[in-house]
């Protein structure tokens, strides 16, 4: 499921499984979303 539907793994336990066991798996982080938000500050 992590490989087939990675976007459904980012905010539940599947993300942890992906990080540990799925080669090349990455998940976006809230910190990145916040920093990249289209507001000046």
């Amino acid at each position, binding site marked *: 499921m992590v490989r087939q539907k990675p976007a459904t793994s980012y905010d539940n336990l599947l993300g942890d499984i992906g990080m540990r066991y799925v080669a090349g798996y990455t998940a976006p982080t809230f910190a990145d979303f916040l*920093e990249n938000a289209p*507001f000046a*500050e």
Partner: protein
Amino acid sequence: MDTVLAGIEVVDTPLVHDAIELARSASEPYLFNHAMRSWLFGVLVAEGARPAPDPELLAVSGILHDLGLTDGYSAQERFEVDGANAARAFLKERGIPAHHIQVVWDAIALHTTRSIALHKEPEVAMTHSGIAVDVIGAGLDRIPQDKVRAILVEFPRLLMKKQFSGAPLRRGSPETSHQL
């Protein structure tokens, strides 16, 4: 009963007024402004939506959604639940029906869980959507720029990115930051 805030027609009731005053008194200015913008963005996201959210419940949910990040209402649970519990107490004191309280509780408890919130009641989904516009810009491109500008003028961001990235570090216990 309606009023106009930042050029947007919004519900104006004693309950909403009390929620605003609670958020204002409990929150640092940047956090209060974020709550108010999130509510207003949620109102705009909800325009034309069917089924439409209850405007008063949408207002209370958006305005109070970050109480769990404040000194006065941060308790022992993850901040979303602390905030939801605080909102529940606020609504119960005012005799709001239990099923309405539950909607607000869910909206606040799930406001950071997009993958679930978007599938729940309109108040829950649009509370999340309004917050997502303000925090990460999700859906910002679908809101007219003049309306965005009016909201930012009325409730400035006050260095929210910097403030918000530090807020979770300033309070709370680490064991509530990695719950599934």
